[in-house]
């Protein structure tokens, strides 16, 4: 770190297709020009252009503006010889030097993003090796050169044509464990790319599971707060689901998403929200955490929608999970788009109507088997059917104090008394019903007293409610200050 290399930074935008020339106009740095010239000779006209303040102002819209203004103006640094047609390797050499010498994350990020010509050319450069054939990653340290490594690593992992050697898993793991989160936040798109790259590479190698640990590290360290949805969330849960190792996802799934920030994560799309909650719901279902799964599916099903959509997958799964959880289907929130919530005429609706009547449930499950299989819900349906008799027994406890096993069997639709006994015993064990069976086979249901509530619990509930109230009050004040809102109200 001999010289300070800072550039006025155009924002790293979601679309990396911005012509490098326009960004270069805002730059006074010769070094940067050298690099871009070295790539494809595109900057011949722009290298002489004077910096225009207006361009700087319009271009800097993100939070990185302040950082850039705090930086003292830099001195130019070592100048590589411009070559008319340099090989990617040579450009990489130059880049490496910059990476090593740079101490400004945002500046470096924008340099790497914008001064390397077309996206294809940039990726080719980033994914290449040095002229000496050495792996550029060897020369860089994860913590010190986070931005540089991030760019190269993501390019290498996603590149399909690279000549460079495959990145060893250990290196990826090391980077994910030790990278500098603040620095990485200057290039969120590259983090997305890296996450996808890690997942892709692991899949290509046929070992999806190996991606979980690095992705977990990346996600937990990169995100300032797990309740904030990132682009890594969907990649992470999809990887967990695909490798069928559901438990590692739990710490992430346990934190409900409550913040959406497009300033921190400009490349967030609506699919990220949908996929995360849908896949999260599937994982939680597989782990038999039905209450949480229902919440996830509901979030997915009730996502804000503009225009007609065909996606009822989440609503269908939600219905099945609710049948397991509550023994009946509950309505979706009022704001759910009707095309999503309307399951009329589907076997799902029919199932919910007759549940938990064992005979009819079986009839529907057999008749519409194909529909459930087509929706990938047949396994879940099996669980729903299995629970039907339990829900029917639960209903009986509301009406009866004592019943013989045979009577229960008749009411529920199981002919075998031993089978009934097994189910009832299972339910008593899991605490679903409070009952006892005596020697003659008569079942006595105890009163299901609501559990006593302790003072501490009440206090906690009150505290939570007060916190929530403050959040809402703050939000209301913010809206009351909102210019657009005030204008609308005045009209």
């Amino acid at each position, binding site marked *: 770190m001999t010289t300070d290399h800072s550039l006025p930074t155009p924002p790293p935008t979601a679309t990396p297709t911005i012509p490098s020339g326009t960004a270069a106009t805002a730059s006074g740095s010769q070094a940067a020009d050298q690099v871009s010239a070295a790539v494809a000779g595109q900057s011949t006209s722009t290298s002489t252009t004077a910096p225009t303040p207006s361009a700087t102002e319009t271009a800097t819209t993100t939070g990185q503006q302040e950082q850039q203004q705090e930086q003292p103006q830099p001195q130019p640094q070592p100048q590589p010889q411009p070559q008319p047609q340099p090989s990617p390797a040579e450009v990489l050499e130059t880049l490496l030097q910059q990476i090593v010498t740079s101490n400004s994350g945002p500046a470096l990020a924008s340099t790497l993003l914008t001064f390397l010509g077309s996206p294809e050319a940039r990726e080719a450069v980033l994914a290449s090796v040095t002229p000496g054939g050495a792996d550029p990653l060897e020369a860089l340290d994860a913590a010190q050169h986070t931005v540089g490594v991030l760019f190269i690593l993501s390019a290498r992992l996603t590149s399909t044509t690279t000549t460079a050697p495959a990145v060893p898993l250990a290196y990826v793991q090391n980077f994910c464990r030790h990278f500098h989160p603040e620095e990485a936040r200057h290039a969120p798109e590259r983090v997305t790319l890296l996450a996808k790259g890690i997942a892709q590479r692991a899949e290509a190698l046929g070992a999806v599971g190996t991606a979980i640990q690095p992705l977990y590290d990346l996600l937990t360290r990169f995100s300032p707060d797990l309740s904030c949805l990132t682009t890594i969330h969907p990649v992470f*849960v*999809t990887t967990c*689901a*695909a490798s*069928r190792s*559901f438990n590692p996802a739990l710490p992430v799934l346990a934190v409900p998403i*409550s913040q*959406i920030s*497009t300033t921190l994560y400009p490349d*967030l*799309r*609506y*699919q990220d929200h949908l*996929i995360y909650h849908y*896949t999260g719901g*599937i994982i939680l*279902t*597989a782990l038999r955490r039905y209450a949480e799964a229902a*919440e996830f599916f*509901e*979030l997915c099903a*009730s*996502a*804000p*929608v*503009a*225009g007609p*959509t*065909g*996606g009822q*997958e989440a609503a269908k799964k939600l219905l099945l999970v609710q049948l397991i959880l509550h023994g009946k289907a509950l309505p979706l*929130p009022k*704001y759910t788009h009707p095309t999503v919530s309307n399951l009329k005429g589907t076997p799902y609706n029919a199932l919910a109507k007759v549940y938990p009547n064992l005979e009819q449930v079986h009839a529907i499950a057999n008749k519409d088997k194909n529909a459930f299989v087509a929706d*990938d*819900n*047949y*396994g*879940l349906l*099996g*669980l729903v059917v299995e629970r039907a008799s339990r829900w029917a027994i639960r209903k009986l406890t*509301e*009406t*009866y*104090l*004592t*019943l*013989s096993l045979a*009577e229960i069997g008749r009411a529920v639709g199981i002919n075998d008394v031993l089978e009934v006994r097994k189910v009832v015993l299972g339910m008593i064990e899991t605490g679903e019903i409070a009952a006892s069976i005596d020697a003659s086979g008569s079942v006595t*249901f105890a*009163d299901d*007293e*609501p*559990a*006593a*509530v302790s003072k501490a619990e*009440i206090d906690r*509930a009150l505290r*939570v*409610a007060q916190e*929530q109230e403050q959040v809402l009050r703050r939000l209301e004040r913010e809206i009351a200050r909102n210019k657009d809102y005030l204008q609308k109200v005045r009209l």
Partner: protein
Amino acid sequence: MSSMDVDPVEDVEMTYYGASQNEGSSSRGHWAVIVDDTHPFDLDTYISGYSGRAAIDRLIHIISLSPSLAPQAFRRALELLTAPTQRDPEYYKTILGTYEAATNRHGVRLPPLEELLPDHSPYLAWVEETNERNNAERRKLEVELKTYTGNMIKESIRMAYRDLASFYRTTGSFENSLRHLTKSREFCATTQDMLEMCLSVLELLLEQRSFSHIPTYVFKAESALDSVGTSGHSSTSLGIGQSGAAAKKIDLHQAVEAKLALCSALSHLANGNYAKATHGFLHPMSVLTLTPWAGTIVSVGDIAVYATLCALATLGRTELRARVIESEGLAGEGEGMKELLDAWMASNFRAVLGLLEKFSARHLLDPLLGPHVANLTALIRTRAVVLYFQPFATIRLDRMSAAFGWTVEDTEREVVALIQRGDIHGRVDTQNKILRARSTNHRAQLYAHALKAGAEMQSATNKLLLRLQLQQANLVVRKTQPPPAPTATAGASEHAEQ
């Protein structure tokens, strides 16, 4: 169930037992009502409440439903038909047809038609004569109408239409009658005329038992009544004046309101909306206010029966006391209804059910009440069981069945149905045959409920806030949602199958 008032050939046990709302009306006409010593029915008393077409109409109804009364009713109907005021030859065919249909019915043995009516000729002569007279009168009325229309005298045209309508009504041509009444509407100059027209239509609709249009005309009549105001028109044009000096004291408003309340109540009854029907039936009405409908369209005694049954089926105890026992309405005046109410108020439910059973034949043979007897009885039973159980914490089912006169199995079935519908808060001990009221710890329940509601509210708020943020960030689903992560789906489903 052995003393059921229905033909044992048909599967009616379910009809009577099931509290299902539609059962009663749909199965009407499929079974015959048996009248015997335990289910008395006095045809003469019953039919004396009606005159003219209303009586014949009810006799035809009885012929089709009750084999044991059919011959008697048949003779009465023919007697009434040839009375000097009647001039509907079509009715002759209807009566014969109904009787024949009744004899052909499965499982019913009736004396053949030839035995009852060996000689058709006097009736055929009557039919021919009546037809001639009717034709002459129709021509006369039509000529009158034409003349008035030519002269463009509005009031006369209206009256001509009205006369034609009433002519068609007496000859059994209801479509024509209704059409002429509707036409007369254009020539109604005053709201008084309007009111008269509406009441005529309502009368016609009641007679026809077509209840679907009644609310429309009730509404029209009400607005007409409002604008008639207190201007104190003579009530002669509404046919109230004829009933003598006492009638003059009856205010026009009272009379019309009573009729309109009755119409609404009957239409609600027909739709099975018993609560609203009760409200209408309990409107103060009497023979005086219902004149000239009483006897020709409805019988006051029967309205009292409808009122009492509906009130028992839908009103709570205190309301029943205030609105039925201590009011001056018709409820409680019908045959056996006083005893019924007394038994109910004394919580003698066995007697209540016994009385309902005893009068069931009479109720079933009533064309307006018949389709609803099963439903009303079921509702009254439910109410009775709920009322009976209210003061108990536990009760043996055998004691309960003694109080209602049922078997223990019946009682248990009834009670279980009520618990499942949420009418009784209790649970059944099937081993010891005990019904036990639910003891709830209200304090603990309140806390648990509050905590649950709080958690739900919070979760809903969080979801809404997230939705708000998604919309602010413009992360809105735009096109068809892509099938999210198919590999993941398959994986989890397989897992679940294991």
